[in-house]
């Protein structure tokens, strides 16, 4: 946190001066302010535009740096995700730069839990030596790299692993959007659309909460839509924090969203409310689909979802009437109610429902965004590594998975099978967040080389052989970020304060230097500035201008609504019937699939989701954010009062929660806001790395209870296929 006494001095001095004024009578602003300015005049405040790193959105922000220290942040007004605002994580996570628990020098593991500091040279030498040895003996496919992609990583990480000859580049999406990405990809040709919320008249959210998994501009748009009288339906087993903005909450049985969407689709067609013109022009396979759909009546869905057939019919009809300004929002994490065995099918059903409404590329509908046209490095001077011959690990097992993200847990699976020998984790806490930590731990221990690049000693870092300390995002420049959307744009993350720890390095430097020692330096023979200059070349913008503005949008390239582009599916159209699915051995027409497990009368399904103040596990060690958890007991699990009563549990009681994988002790929040069949646990707690002193020991990690499992279609982690029993214990 900011050094309070020092930086408050200006204000206190001003108060002293205004005190004199106050005793002379009432102080006005102007007098007060004059004194304030005088007192604070020696504080130099710089405003530096950059981008956030507290979640995957990377909102534009402006850092206010006082006397060389980060003082506060404000949202960048031009950036499409922030629109002048930042969420709590954005404000708070930036204090990581001054965290006492930061990594300050390269570390080498020398015992079970013992690390010793080494020089960068030694780290590079030893890591490259091992990498080359492994590649020589087992081939480049025995090496993998996984990250939570941010601007620089997105460019440098795949390039680095490809330079080594491996195609094994993975992202954290395996526990995020893999299902949605696969379902959308094979239906509409993109892994995600965006929603024109502010113009929509009828919006349905399934398992997605703008108020919890925040992108500030989305919440602003939703609030605007509400002001304009839009109907907003939340489908979720718990009344999430977006509830205030909603018209109606459908408290669905967890894992049954697919049945709801199928039934609503059936109603649309039955009532002749589907957009026949759109279907004729832009889709294939509608007749087969419509025929299959007949069996999914609202009465059928009522039995599965617990939502009255009347409500299903009413909402579907109202959405049909509001089309094309009606949509099911594209969701994010885990696609629609998160990762169940049927989530990819749910993603597909949703993409198809939006097609029935003909809302693609329509005002108030689902939008295919456009990207900015950026340049590349001159290939003559800066050769690209050639595409590796062997396919990415998991490609064979999960042919439908979205290729660019891959199935990151395959690294662990192949390590357990003895095939994967080395893994690099950049800005990724896979050991805690990607699958059952026990299994992940075992997998990591099987490998000959694990390298973690991070700013703090995450669980993954503790299991690594080498830990490379990165500077924080407040202390580095990054690769230009292209923003796609209705209007394309670019944003730059840039350094705000001097490096706090001299032995830390920005990621582009780490890759460039490591590549050189590994013998593939020829692919990294450029500086970050050269790369950014090359990217900017086709635009009329200079690097200096971008540095001054931070975010620049290209309103002249705004997409035209009403014109549906040729889709990137094999047929170029929305695919109600998918040959790709068929070839992969799945039903080409969307169908109802049962969740993998179901709770009995004496058990619950464990579900998880975001809280507005945390993201992944990275924010758990940030005192200003964790204090909110403590002040409001936010680490508790949610249980429905009727079920709690039957178990003799009262609000605040300590309970034991037991699954096939683990047992946890935690206090409960008894609330009507949750489905009786479910227990909700917020997803950011359970830090087991003792080096993270703020987060350590708060709450429990739901991943401990999640079996190491892959959803059959997209390879996503089946995070919500977990049954638990709960009993009261003595506190």
């Amino acid at each position, binding site marked *: 946190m900011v050094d309070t006494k020092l930086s408050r001095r200006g204000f206190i001095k001003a108060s002293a001066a205004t005190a004199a004024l106050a005793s002379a009578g009432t102080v006005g602003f102007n007098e*007060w302010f004059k004194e304030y300015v005088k007192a604070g005049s020696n504080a130099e405040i710089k405003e530096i535009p950059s981008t956030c790193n507290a979640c995957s959105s990377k909102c534009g922000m402006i850092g206010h740096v006082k006397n060389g220290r980060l003082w506060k942040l404000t949202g960048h007004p031009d950036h499409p995700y922030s629109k002048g605002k930042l969420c709590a994580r954005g404000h*708070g996570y930036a204090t990581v730069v001054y965290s006492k628990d930061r990594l300050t020098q390269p570390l080498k593991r020398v015992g079970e839990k013992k690390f010793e500091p080494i020089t960068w040279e030694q780290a590079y030498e030893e890591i490259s030596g091992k990498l080359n040895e492994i590649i020589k003996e087992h081939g480049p496919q025995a090496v993998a790299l996984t990250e939570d992609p941010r601007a620089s990583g997105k460019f440098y990480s795949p390039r680095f692993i490809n330079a080594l000859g491996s195609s094994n580049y993975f992202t954290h999406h395996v526990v995020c959007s893999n299902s949605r990405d696969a379902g959308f990809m094979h239906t509409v040709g993109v892994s995600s659309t965006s929603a024109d919320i502010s113009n929509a008249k009828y919006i349905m959210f399934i398992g997605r909460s703008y108020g919890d998994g925040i992108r500030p501009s989305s919440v602003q748009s939703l*609030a605007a839509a509400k002001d304009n009288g839009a109907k907003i339906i939340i489908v979720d087993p718990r009344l999430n924090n977006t509830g205030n903005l909603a018209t109606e909450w459908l408290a669905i049985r967890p894992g049954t969203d697919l049945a709801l969407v199928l039934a609503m689709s059936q109603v649309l067609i039955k009532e002749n409310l589907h957009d026949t013109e759109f279907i004729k022009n832009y889709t294939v396979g509608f007749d087969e689909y419509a025929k299959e759909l007949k069996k999914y009546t609202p009465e059928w869905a009522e039995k599965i979802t617990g939502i009255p057939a009347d409500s299903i019919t009413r909402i579907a009809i109202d959405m049909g009437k509001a089309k094309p300004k009606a949509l099911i929002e594209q969701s994010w994490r885990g696609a629609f109610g998160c990762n169940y065995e049927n989530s990819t099918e749910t993603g597909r059903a949703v993409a198809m429902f939006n097609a029935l409404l003909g809302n693609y590329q329509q005002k108030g509908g689902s939008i295919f965004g456009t990207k900015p046209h950026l340049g590349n490095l001159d290939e003559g001077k800066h050769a690209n590594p050639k595409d590796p011959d062997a396919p990415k690990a998991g490609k064979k097992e999960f042919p439908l998975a979205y290729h660019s993200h891959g199935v990151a847990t395959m690294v662990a699976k192949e390590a357990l099978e003895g095939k994967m020998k080395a893994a690099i984790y950049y800005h990724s806490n896979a050991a805690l967040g990607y699958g059952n930590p026990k299994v992940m731990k075992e997998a990591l221990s099987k490998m000959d080389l694990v390298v973690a690049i991070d700013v703090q000693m995450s669980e993954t870092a503790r299991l690594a052989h080498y830990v490379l300390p990165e500077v924080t995002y407040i202390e580095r420049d990054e690769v230009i970020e292209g923003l796609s959307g209705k209007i394309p744009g670019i944003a730059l993350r840039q350094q705000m304060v001097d490096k706090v720890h001299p032995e830390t390095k920005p990621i582009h430097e780490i890759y460039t230097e490591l590549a050189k020692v590994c013998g593939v330096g020829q692919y990294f023979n450029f500086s970050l500035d050269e790369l950014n200059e090359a990217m900017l070349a086709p635009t009329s913008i200079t690097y200096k201008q971008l540095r001054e503005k931070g975010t620049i949008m290209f309103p002249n390239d705004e997409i035209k609504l009403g014109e549906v582009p040729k889709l990137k599916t094999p047929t170029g159209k929305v695919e109600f019937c998918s040959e790709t699915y068929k070839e992969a051995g799945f039903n080409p027409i969307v169908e109802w699939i049962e969740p993998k497990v179901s709770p009995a009368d004496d058990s619950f399904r464990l579900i998880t989701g975001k809280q507005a103040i945390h993201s992944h596990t990275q924010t758990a060690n940030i005192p200003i954010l964790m204090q909110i958890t403590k002040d409001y007991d936010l680490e508790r699990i949610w249980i429905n009062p009727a079920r709690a009563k039957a178990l003799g549990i009262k609000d605040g009681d300590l309970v034991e929660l037991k699954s096939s994988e683990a047992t946890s002790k935690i206090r409960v929040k008894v609330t*009507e806001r949750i489905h009786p069949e479910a227990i909700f646990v917020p997803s950011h707690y359970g830090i087991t790395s003792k080096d993270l002193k703020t987060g350590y020991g708060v709450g429990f990690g739901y991943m401990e209870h999640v079996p190491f499992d892959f959803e059959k279609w997209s390879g996503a982690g089946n995070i919500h296929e977990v049954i638990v029993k709960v009993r009261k214990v003595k506190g």
Partner: protein
Amino acid sequence: MARYGMVIDTRKCVGCYACRVSCQMQNELPVEESYIKFYEKETGVFPNVKNEIIPVQCQHCEDAPCVSVCPTKATYTTKEGIVLVDADKCIGCKYCMVACHYGARTQDHNTGVVEKCRFCAELVAEGKQPACVSTCISNARIFGDLDDPNSEVSKAIVKMNAQPLRPDLGKAKIYYVR
């Protein structure tokens, strides 16, 4: 002379705490100290439930009890109606903390000074919005001149029939829509 006030529309508040954290950063508060507190009110029975989140901070009362009890006059009201604390005069006696109906005051454990929401006086003097208002992700907060009938805040109060949180406890300058 402006008379500053705020509207908080709890029907829009999603309880994201952005206002709390931005306020802490703006005012360089220690981690444990916050000017904004949150109350939750759940009504109804599953599945017919409503949940209201009510952010509460200093209400900048007219005839503020904290001002009248303060023995050193450390707490005072500016001409614009902002209730401020003069850190140099505050002796940390906590009378004001007891007098405040809203539990809006906190003591800085480092300095002993009792503080509270200051309506971001220095930002407002520069013509800017308070930190909590400019960062509110759902635009649930509106700030401005209560004496100007054309200000956004005055119009919002009329349009949405915003009321003080506890009208029975006297006039306040924060109005709630619930």
